[in-house]
């Protein structure tokens, strides 16, 4: 690739997307440091260093994908999908158990979470399928096929069990189908089926999952376990006030009321809310807003349907994660264990998120219309 091509890429990119992403990643690392800061005598303190490494790895992926034509990437969709399905199967058999769930695979001493990459696989495969020339978005068979593509990895991930991540697959597939112009009638039918399936789902849920939903509905049901996290997270967020207590000053966080195992991962947002107050937490929302705007823009300006669907799927994915996680942190939703994109501690998720955003950038760079 010669210099003028690189220049073309740099100039046509969506600067908002890149900058907001970097800002969020930097903020994530700083607050992971804050969450681990007090535990100098515990392994948590090394988390931020590892997170920096993951950000760098993710950035390489981001740039690579932004420079690559997304159609080329989508060409490998079935490969990516197939490999991630295989890895998910592998997880079920030889996965590493952490707290009763096996989600990780050990590769050269690095813990990889295949479900994160399965999201990308589903995204690409469903988008590609829905963008086929001969596809009739109103044909129930085609609709069923698209849903089945998300269903296979859904079952595998739900068995781990990791229901939160599994649910994101539906979010991705539904957004793509919706943007692809499915008839309202079918969406209604889907909604109805979903409602009817809820009792079935309740029965098939694991005990701890049911318990979590009950904890949410009956706020103080298990105030010493999952409820404790919720109460403490709410206190952390609430006590942040308008401007917060200052970096490294969050007492909820530093004094360990917020359990040290979840503060840097699922509850990173409450660390920010406590230490930086409404100003900080709202800023984070604005940054996510910028990324989502870029996503919508990508879906709008994409030169073909494939690009539009991929951009829409990515937007749905990011939105789902952010909304569920923030809502959980401030006590509006059950505790699902869904991490916050670009901020929560975790390598697989960081890299897969940045890869997705690289794909989005690639769509924007190769946009058709002016916008």
């Amino acid at each position, binding site marked *: 690739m010669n210099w003028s091509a690189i220049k073309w890429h740099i100039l046509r990119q969506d600067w908002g997307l890149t900058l907001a992403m970097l800002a969020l990643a930097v903020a994530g690392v700083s607050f992971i440091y804050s969450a681990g800061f007090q535990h100098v*005598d515990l392994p948590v303190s090394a988390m931020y260093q590892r997170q920096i490494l993951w950000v760098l790895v993710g950035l390489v992926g981001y740039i690579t994908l932004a420079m690559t034509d997304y159609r080329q990437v989508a060409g490998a969709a079935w490969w990516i999908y197939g490999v991630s399905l295989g890895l998910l199967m592998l997880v079920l058999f030889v996965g590493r158990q952490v707290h009763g769930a096996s989600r990780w695979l050990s590769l050269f001493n690095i813990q990889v979470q295949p479900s994160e990459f399965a999201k990308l696989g589903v995204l690409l495969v469903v988008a590609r399928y829905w963008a086929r020339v001969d596809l009739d978005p109103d044909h129930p068979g085609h609709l069923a096929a698209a849903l089945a593509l998300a269903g296979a990895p859904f079952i595998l991930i739900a068995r781990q069990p990791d229901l939160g991540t599994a649910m994101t697959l539906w979010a991705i597939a539904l957004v793509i189908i919706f943007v692809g112009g499915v008839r309202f009638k079918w969406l209604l039918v889907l909604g109805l089926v979903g409602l009817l399936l809820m009792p079935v789902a309740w029965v098939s849920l694991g005990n701890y999952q049911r318990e979590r939903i009950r904890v949410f509905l009956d706020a103080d049901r298990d105030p010493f*376990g999952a409820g*404790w996290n919720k109460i403490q997270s709410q*206190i952390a*967020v609430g006590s942040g*006030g308008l401007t917060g207590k200052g970096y490294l000053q969050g007492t909820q966080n530093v004094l360990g009321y917020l359990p040290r195992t979840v503060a840097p991962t699922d509850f990173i947002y409450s660390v920010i809310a406590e230490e930086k107050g*409404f100003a900080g937490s*709202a800023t984070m929302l604005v940054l996510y807003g910028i990324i989502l705007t870029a996503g919508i823009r990508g879906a709008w300006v994409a030169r073909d349907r494939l690009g539009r669907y991929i951009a829409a799927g990515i937007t749905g994915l990011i939105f789902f994660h952010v909304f569920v996680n923030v809502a959980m942190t401030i006590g509006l939703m059950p505790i699902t264990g869904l991490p916050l994109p670009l901020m929560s501690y975790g390598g697989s998720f960081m890299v897969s998120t940045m890869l997705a955003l690289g794909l989005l950038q690639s769509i924007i760079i190769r946009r058709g219309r002016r916008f």
Partner: protein
Amino acid sequence: MALAFVFLGVMLWRIQVVHGERYRDDELRQSVRRVRLPGMRGRLYDRHGIVLADNRPGHHIAVYLEELRRPGGWVRTVDHLELQLDTWAQELNVERELSRTDIEMHIRRRLPMPLIAWRDIDERTLGRWAERLAGIRGVDIYTEAVRVYPHNELFAHVLGYVGRADAEPDPEEPFHYYLPEMTGRSGLERRYDTLMRADAGARLVRVDAVGYRHADLAFREPGAGYDVQTTLDHRVQEAARRALEGEPGSVVVLDPRTGDVLALVSEPAFDPNAFIPAITSARWQALLDDPRRPLIHRPVAGTYAPGSIFKPVVAIAALENNLATPDAVFYCPGHFELGRARFHCWNRRGHGSLNMRQSLERSCNVYYYRLALQIGYPAIYHMARALGLGQRTGIDLDHEVSGLLPDDAWKRRTFNDAWRDGDTVNLSIGQGPITVTPLQMAVVAAALANGGPVPRPRLVRGQRPFGDGAFAPRDPEPLRPMNWSAAAIATVRGGMRDVIMGERGTARTSSLPGVVYAAKTGTAEFGPKDEGRKHAWMIAFAPYDNPRYAIALMVDDGLSGGQTAGPKVQRLLSELLQVQGGGS
């Protein structure tokens, strides 16, 4: 999507700015404290409702680490706590109990739980606490049930004791917060731990900087375990222990009709209360080093050569296999020659000619040498096996052992040698490699008392929810039938009756006026020959008709069954039958 974000923003504004003050208040005085509410561990009773293991309230001084947390590394909190502990110790006028390691260990392993700084404090300390320290941030009184064994040493081995439950550290799952404070470590406490254990409950209270409790936020009811009714009889146990007169040994008393264990005595004993809440290492070491070995539960975990109490087994084996009749007569000149080896009778002058019933009465060795050689060892082996020797009885205790019933295969395995006539001769009088537990011999005595059916010993007869009404009874296991012929069992029982009642019985001096009972003495040599040490045994059942008691009594180191064990059984039975005189 934009709407959703606006919604999140509004909610954030509401929580952080509008209601921020309220949360800041909560947080400032943090605030929320998890208070453990201990559950009630089920109690152990004897068959008449006397409490054998009970709970009493114990007051501890507990430290709530989250309220004492200092910013920065845990080291700073530990430093701070150490200073505080010294101050408090001075105020309370007690020694500091927690070392720095204890604190660090607690932080690593049991962080969400209160850290107990002083365990089971006395009334005076409690008073000083109320005067000076009540209301200090981060410490409070923590009350829990403490196990207590009101009969001290009497039931030591069979009840066992409890110890502190140690949860595996798993910070993600605070469920071990509900684990009971104590778990059974040995004896019935251990075997029925899951039945008696009681999960702790908890209360979430909001406290302020001076420890004032503002409100209960949440509550989870503590659990309660099941009360367990044992088959033990407090009075029988006491009489049995008294009968041993402090000499190391075992007493087992069974109800032959059901297998109910009425008494299970192991002497010397220890005080299980010494293990509550935890035994000091000095005391533990003393128990371990004691040459009298008080920690061994002799009747179920001790194995001994049975000696002559094995003879009834040989007799019944001969009769039941039609290899000999009750009229089989052998002549005893006082010794027996097998090849070039000479086996003596305990009576060197010889017993003369004896039939089978007389051979039991007078415990003639030569008779059994000859009888055993005539019938062959497999018949003896199979009868002993059917009576439960060489295998665990299945009593509800974890540390039971099986003893050893040797056979040809065992001998080949162990000595690479075939079974020989000499082995049969040894086995016939319960010597050689054979070992049994006193409990096994009590079961044999019960089978002879019943005229066949073998009971399976059991220690628990009922259970009920904590403190709630009558015990729901458990059915005893059905007896295992032996289908002995009436003539055979009459001969063996008659011989054992003569041991006490006959003119030449080896334990005729142990008879009781107005009572007909049956027994068999045994004197088993152990240890190096020149030391001449002997286990003194007696198995017995009483009354002779419709027996209610089957007894195995053994003194570790005695003169002989007749001289040492007999009088003890006599004393025990005199108490039991008097006690039982009123009926019941």
